């Protein structure tokens, strides 16, 4: 059976196409203003990547914040369930998955069967999300990749007292005015995000193995700060952290079909 999982996120739209459990195609595009059009385009790109015809897809599952806007889905699945199923497929010894996306973070605990047993989401506070890193990098006038790497070269501990992304930005501006180095500011920002995500993650009973996925999994500054905050040595990062929810949705589309 061929299935497609579409993750309609606030920043990116991701599509994974599976033939059985094998990934045969994938695509990602920025969400943009006309989300419906971008979803169709991203699906078409994934179909092209899979070298199949659109009509070859037996089932489509939609997930992500915009999941209800996609009218052609056979199944609509919450991002918690899709994320849990996806990360378990990436590594079946993972019991806790932490997803940090552009606008929200979530913690998902799964059992030995990959079923979600505990979850917490924070979609209100931007200070614990990927967009915060982008806005802080912008304040420093450097690109996000460099900003993330700079944090690794600093040993400084500068507490950021602001509890809100908006106020934190003015705190960063003050640090710039005090001639604080870019690497120390970067570390302070990443420590601050890690602290927020960790306290949300602790709402679920953190059980190893712990995995990080979503956009911030690509950020070495955040991963290092997060590990330090949770006092863990090892953390699993899937090969394609942005596609975990789409993968989970595609798998669940097949599994639900079998149930039906």
């Amino acid at each position, binding site marked *: 059976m061929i299935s497609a999982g579409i993750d309609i996120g606030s920043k990116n739209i991701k599509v994974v196409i599976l033939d059985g459990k094998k990934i045969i195609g994938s695509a990602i595009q920025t969400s943009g203003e006309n989300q419906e059009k971008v979803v169709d385009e991203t699906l078409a790109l994934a179909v092209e990547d899979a070298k199949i015809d659109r009509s070859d897809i037996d089932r489509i599952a939609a997930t992500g914040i915009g999941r209800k806007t996609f009218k052609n889905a056979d199944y609509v*699945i*919450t991002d*918690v*369930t899709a994320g849990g199923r996806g990360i378990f497929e990436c590594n079946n010894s993972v019991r806790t998955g932490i997803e940090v996306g552009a606008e929200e973070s979530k913690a998902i605990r799964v059992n030995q069967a990959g*079923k*979600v*047993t*505990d*979850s*917490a*989401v*924070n*979609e*209100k*506070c931007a200070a614990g999300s990927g967009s915060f890193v982008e806005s802080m990098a912008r304040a420093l006038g450097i690109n996000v990749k460099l900003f993330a790497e700079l944090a690794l070269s600093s040993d400084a501990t500068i507490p950021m007292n*602001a*509890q*809100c992304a908006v106020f934190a930005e003015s705190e960063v501006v003050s640090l710039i005015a005090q001639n604080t180095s870019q690497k120390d500011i970067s570390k302070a920002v990443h420590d601050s995000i890690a602290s*927020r995500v960790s*306290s*949300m993650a602790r*709402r*679920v009973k953190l059980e190893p193995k712990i995995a990080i996925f979503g956009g911030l999994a690509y950020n070495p500054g955040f991963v290092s700060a997060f590990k330090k905050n949770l006092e863990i040595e090892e953390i699993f990062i899937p090969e394609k952290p942005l596609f975990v929810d789409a993968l989970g949705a595609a798998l*669940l589309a097949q599994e639900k079909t079998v*149930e039906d």
Partner: protein
Amino acid sequence: MIANYGYMDGSGEYYITIDTDKCVECEGKMCVTACPKALFERVTDDYDDDVVKIADSKVKDIRYQCMECKSPGHPVLPCIAACTPMALKHSW
């Protein structure tokens, strides 16, 4: 599943926790009608269980939605009192 609905911000953590393994056993789902702010909605979840969740439109301001019931003079929250399987908890 232990589902935490809500958020944390600079002022604290505001989560309503629903133990869906207990919730699924309850036929009446009386919390849905007990809440004066209509915070709860009855849904079939991704595992095809008939459970209650916090409405998406209200997740981001549950602190303010619950304020009236948490004010002095309301010793027991109506949702907690109505939840016979004791599946509900508030974090604040």
